[in-house]
């Protein structure tokens, strides 16, 4: 008993962004696809498109994906003007053709943000996120043996809230959706997770200062509370995290002992 829609098909027109390289001018290329099964995923539809392009002897469309189940954060398409497409709480790879109607024209673009330059077609370079993470998105714990895992009890609601923040998949939709191309939602999710947990306390202040500074350095815009990020986020990361990050930042910046500790490995606080 397959779903009733199984054998239903639609015809669609696609406008896809093509761009040879970072420096090259991009443009929209048009394609028609007939008999698209509505139970196909959006990326499977693009696979079919690519087979068609290859068979005509042309260079296939470059787009990224890996897990195709919404967890790795690799897929990254703006579909119909929305990061990850029109379905809330889903990544591009979790989008199904049943969302679209027969005869619809679908526009597909890459993430657009200064800090995420296009490499080719729909593939952008998101390594700026790694550099934000590098600037403190960790606890100072060393690898190797540690005290028993149950030595520090963590209340369930705290652990759950930390997990809510930790669910970020680093996809960058928040940046793509934000008119300022701010990376605040991404950065605040990590800051909040570690600020909530006892394990994150030792370098709490140093972490938030460095991560926020790095975010600015990468050319991401600032947050002006437009809330587009939360709406686009496939993991429904809450903008409350941004409020927490702003507080954390303020507290850390004001802390008298912070500057003194800035240079040392274990930080202030």
């Amino acid at each position, binding site marked *: 008993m397959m779903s009733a829609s199984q054998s239903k098909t639609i015809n669609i027109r696609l406008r896809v962004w093509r761009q040879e390289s970072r420096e090259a001018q991009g443009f929209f290329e048009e394609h028609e696809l007939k008999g698209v099964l509505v139970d196909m995923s959006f990326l499977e539809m693009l696979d079919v498109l*690519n087979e068609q392009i290859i068979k005509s002897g042309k260079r296939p469309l470059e787009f990224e994906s890996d897990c195709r189940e919404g967890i790795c954060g690799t897929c990254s398409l703006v579909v119909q003007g929305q990061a990850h497409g029109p379905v809330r709480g889903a990544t591009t790879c979790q989008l*199904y053709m049943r969302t679209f109607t027969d005869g619809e024209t679908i526009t597909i673009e890459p993430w657009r943000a200064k800090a995420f330059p296009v490499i080719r077609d729909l593939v952008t370079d998101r390594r700026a996120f790694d550099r934000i993470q590098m600037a403190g*998105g960790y606890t100072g*714990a060393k690898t190797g043996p540690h005290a028993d895992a149950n030595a520090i009890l963590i209340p369930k609601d705290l652990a759950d809230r930390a997990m809510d923040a930790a669910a970020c998949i680093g996809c960058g939709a928040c940046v793509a959706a934000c008119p300022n191309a701010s990376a605040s939602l991404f950065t605040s999710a990590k800051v909040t997770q570690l600020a909530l947990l006892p394990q994150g306390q030792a370098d709490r202040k140093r972490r938030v200062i460095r991560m926020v500074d790095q975010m600015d350095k990468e050319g991401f815009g600032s947050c002006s509370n437009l809330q587009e990020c939360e709406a686009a986020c496939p993991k429904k990361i809450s903008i409350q995290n941004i409020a927490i990050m702003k507080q954390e930042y303020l507290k850390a910046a004001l802390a008298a002992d912070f500057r003194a500790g800035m240079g040392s490995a274990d930080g202030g606080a």
Partner: protein
Amino acid sequence: MSIELNPGIPEGPLSQKWDNYKANMKLVNPANKRKYSVIVVGTGLAGASAAASLAELGYEVKSFCTHDSARRAHSIAAQGGINAAKSYPNDGDSVWRLFYDTIKGGDYRAREANVYRLAQNSTSIIDQCVSQGVPFAREYSGELANRSFGGAQVSRTFYARGQTGQQLLLGAYSQLMKEVDKGKVTLFPYREMLDVVMVDGKARGIITRNVTTGEIERHAADAVVLATGGYGRVYFLSTNAMNSNVTAIWRAHRRGALFGNPCYVQIHPTCIPVSGNYQAKLTLMSESLRNDGRVWVPKKKEDCKKDPSSIPDEDRDYYLERKYPSFGNLAPRDISSRAAKEVCDEGRGVGESGLAVYLDFRDAIKRDGEAAIRERYGNLFDMYHEITNENPYRSPMRIYPAVHYTMGGLWVDYSLQTTLPGLFAAGEANFSDHGANRLGASALMQGLSDGYFILPYTVTNYLGTHAQDLLKKVDVNHAAFESAEKEVRAEIDRMLENGKKGKRTVTEIYRDLGKVVWDKIGMARSEQGLKEALAEIEKLQKDFDTDLLLTGDSKLNKNLEMAGRLRDLLELGALMARDALERKESCGGHFRVESQTPDGEAQRDDENFAHVAAWEYKGKGQVPVRHQEKLVYENVKLSVRSYK
């Protein structure tokens, strides 16, 4: 000429072997550590944990992955959990029991000493992950929560909602980024490793391709670790990520590293069934669902197309509970998968294709309430709903087995070193500790055990032992690098050149390969089928060489990457068929129809096959040579693996 392989297991009683190893290993003094560099390929649980740990010891580490970021490695997708013999629930667990369950679960085809060490390390893994801020699930008491997984009668699985792999990987990734920040690790993202470079009999570097620019690069070091994941993508359709591949370990195999047990593949019982011929990948429904879901098919064929809720209990066959009363729905994966295939073969499968069984939560929802089930499995239920457009809170899920994990991989000794000196393999990439079948929640444990707790010692021992040689640095202008690079370039040029003339796309040939391997080297294998597979794969290899259609250039070109991987997977497919053909017994995930008990269970042949098969590459189109490592059991008695 076949040789007997020496696993290098340390002296002493089982529980002291690892301590003995550490007590006798060579060290590298702290001031000297920075003189050594180690290449770690792969940033999944095994690679990221190894790179971070080696860097923290003081070595200069170079970390490679094919993605833009280390955090995207396929480990991120693991859902269910990670095992550890913490025994927090006080339900009779111990290092010994985890060891025993793993050996038995692997159908007595794993190395005792390795498995025992794995069970020992398991508890430290949890401690370390908590210290990294991994938000494991907790009880209201604030203590860590546990659940149970297939093949075990205790609750030893730790989890972070349905995203355990993600949280563990982000933990390891954060450790890695900390070392990058300190300048001890250099990241090389967007790199695909295409060869290992051997200098004077030791692994001293790799050749990579920058997938965004197409540049071919040389990288030198004093030791090389491959942590590049499993090769389930040989089946085309699997639960593995699109970029999972065999290329890194296959290129090492071509350079002389032996390949262990290639035919041991895990087919996971609970995946969303195939629904069309356009599909590129299958989705797993975590095994943890079997804690509360009951597996059944109708007793009568004529009921198969009916609405499942209209079928009364007396007309349902809860076949796992019926056949394996003591483990029931939590029977191990190989057994559950085969049981599903059996009932479908009998014509009692459900769904349009008849290739599915029900996983039903009706009783659990009645017992615990919908809210409790949502709390436990909410994201999995949502995922199911999204993909199938059906609501599993209302009607049972339909599931079918799919390829999930590969127990085979590069043969390694006790120190995780391959047969090439200085080349180590960790995580799913090695032939591992899981024998012929892996228990759920044990891959994450093994990856982190390898990376956090084994390689830091064994790589050190290697560097310390060969200090004199290794302190003479090789540079990338060495002739060995020169010729390896040339070969890599020639292969890419050949594919691009041939690709202009052919008619069959990479995907078309790849799909065909997947179908052959699934039909003939899947859940049931026969001598005749395996011979057919060899012939069919040979034909596909010819298609690849003479009729490939490949467009685009040598810069960012996913299709070109895929072509290179397919080339290796075709060779691997043939090796799997050979390995399955030679192993004339059934064990774990390897089921030879010629070798079964009267009631259809796997029939092992300990007398002739209690060994690891390790294959030597002899060149393209040449017949590979099968070597053996005898498996010696001093602590457990080989017995019939019963879950009844």
